[in-house]
């Protein structure tokens, strides 16, 4: 019991820290800023590729191709001074730095706000960030060796291959799924002996597995876990290299609840249920179960489940929502106070959002993840209908719509919403009072 309280306490701290950092320092006062004229930018370059917007909405960027065939990044209308043979995968870090994968002289690297890492590679991809944006990691290749690069520095371990990368919230841990043992072509026996493992901060786990999938890191960054495959049809979850004693027909990605408790969907006799540190904790045997998520204090668990073939819904603490959906239900989101749960649902090829089991009446061509207000009373989401984009609040689409919209963010006090949108070819950052969205 003490352990549990401690765990829950730890979760609370982590969550509090995380939520305090989002949006606190952003400008919630200026009602409207015209950040960039995309039409003007499009006119200026031979080509302008897909645009991306920073979390705070202050910057909009796109790879641009100049008339002489070179690439660079254009941020709020300003181009980076350096030109590249190729530039793509523009990503803003959570703290607003713009990163890109760039190619010069047939060598690839990452450019951060226009500055290239010194190390160059045959190829580099999959830029990942810590929650504060201080750590930038990626996978890379050099002369057939596979590498992990963290803030421009290459790990000393080289690998036969890498697949998948995870960075802890605080950035102190970087984990990668790596192939540690080379495998001859069509060597089906060597394969069964296990050639894959996880490397954490440049150090491999002691043990190899047939497969390792989807690493996850505890909130405090101390523990790393992943799905592992032990035999042809034998799976479990390993934490810090140590597999659970229990074996299952299949497992899906684990997720830490607090820093000690690890939960994963597991398949037992053809049905799925939820296991915590190897022990089954839900009685329900579902046709499918995945995307287990926890309330901020860790006391409640929600997951996507299928109670009957072709029927999908959410189970909260092993209790099903009444209504099921035929197409899909995506990952559940808890409100900050842990009272409510929302998820994207899809039926007859129409998308909408369901909150506490009740779907919005309006349906859309596409919806993005639901966002709860800080008090948990309101839910907003980006939606797409008839080729136009807008924000829906508690099931009703705003009367204004746009050529493009990015996912909305609530102000810390919950009275305003940050709306990043493109209107008549111009990109605006707007802070909209919640009442206006209702109108």
């Amino acid at each position, binding site marked *: 019991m003490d352990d549990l309280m401690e765990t829950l306490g730890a979760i609370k701290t982590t969550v509090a820290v995380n939520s305090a950092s989002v949006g606190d320092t952003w400008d919630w006062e200026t009602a409207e800023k015209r950040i960039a004229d995309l039409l003007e930018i499009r006119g200026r370059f031979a080509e302008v590729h897909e645009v991306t917007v920073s979390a705070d909405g202050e910057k909009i960027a796109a790879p641009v191709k100049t008339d002489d065939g070179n690439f660079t990044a254009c941020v709020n209308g300003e181009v980076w001074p350096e030109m590249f043979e190729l530039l793509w995968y523009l990503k803003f870090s959570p703290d607003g730095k713009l990163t890109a994968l760039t190619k010069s002289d047939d060598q690839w690297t990452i450019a951060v706000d226009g500055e290239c890492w010194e190390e160059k590679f045959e190829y580099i991809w999959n830029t990942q960030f810590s929650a504060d944006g201080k750590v930038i990691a990626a996978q890379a290749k050099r002369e057939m060796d596979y590498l992990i690069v963290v803030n421009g520095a290459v790990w000393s371990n080289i690998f036969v291959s890498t697949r998948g990368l995870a960075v802890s919230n605080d950035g102190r841990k970087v984990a990668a799924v790596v192939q540690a043992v080379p495998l001859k072509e069509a060597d089906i026996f060597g394969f069964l002996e296990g050639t894959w493992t996880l490397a954490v901060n440049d150090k491999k786990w002691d043990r190899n597995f047939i497969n390792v999938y989807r690493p996850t890191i505890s909130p405090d960054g101390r523990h790393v876990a992943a799905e592992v495959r032990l035999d042809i049809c034998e799976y479990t979850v390993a934490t810090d290299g140590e597999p659970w004693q229990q074996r299952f027909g299949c497992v899906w990605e684990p997720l830490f609840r607090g820093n000690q408790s690890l939960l994963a969907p597991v398949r037992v006799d053809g049905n799925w249920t939820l296991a915590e540190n190897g022990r089954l904790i839900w009685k329900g045997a579902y*046709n499918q179960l995945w995307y287990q998520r926890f309330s901020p204090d860790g006391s409640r668990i929600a997951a996507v489940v299928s109670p*009957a*073939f*072709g029927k999908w819904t959410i189970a909260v603490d092993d209790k099903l929502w009444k209504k099921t959906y035929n197409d899909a239900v995506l990952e559940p989101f808890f409100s900050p106070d842990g009272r409510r749960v929302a998820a994207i649902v899809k039926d007859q090829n129409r998308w909408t959002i369901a909150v506490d089991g009740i779907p919005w009446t309006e349906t859309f061509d596409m919806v993005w993840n639901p966002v709860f207000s800080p008090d948990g009373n309101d839910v907003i989401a980006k939606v797409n209908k008839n080729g136009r984009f807008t924000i829906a609040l508690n099931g009703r689409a705003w009367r204004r719509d746009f050529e493009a919209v990015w996912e909305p963010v609530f102000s810390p006090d919950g009275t305003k919403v940050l709306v990043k949108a493109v209107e008549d070819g111009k990109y605006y950052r707007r802070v909209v009072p919640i009442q206006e969205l209702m109108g």
Partner: protein
Amino acid sequence: MYEFARGPLVWIALLVFAGGCLYRLVWMVRAAKQDKVVIPYMSWKYGLRSLLHWIVPFASRNMRLHPVMTVVTFVFHICLLLTPIFLLAHNVLWQQSWGVSWWSLPSRLADVMTVAVMAGGIFFIGRRLRLPEVRNVTDYSDYLLIAVVLAPFVTGFIASQQWFAYRTMVILHMWTGALMLMAIPFTRLSHMLYFIFTRMYMGSEFGAVRNAKDW
């Protein structure tokens, strides 16, 4: 022997047959639930569409590829099913025992139908012996099953024609008839029960899931 066959055996046979069929159907539904996809995939529309194409002679390509087999199998199955139900002699017995009766086949026609069943059975045996692809998957049980089906028809036919050993034949007829009834739920003769379901399931999978024909 005759008294037993005329009395308890009929009841036993009917009970075993009905009970057995019920049991096999309940078992099938349970197994179908365990086989998660079966019930959700079932579609009346496509199931019946498929059934229709396979209970109408020559409505499927495979039936057209085997015209003789198609004719024989339809005649055989129709006669096999109808003759015992609408036979005058059986009707008389039902009238005596339970006070129910219905329209009867003219005896000449009943004879022809009985012969058709026997001829069909012989055709099937011949097919098993002659065609390599059938012989290859035939074992003693296949002949035994044909024998079980033919026996009541042969004995009944001999008895009705009163060619010889009438009383023995009647008793044999009753026993073999009972045996066949009882064998239906518990042998491959259960295709009588399952045909509709396997056919409709396949029709559903082809039609509803795969948007294709299955005939």
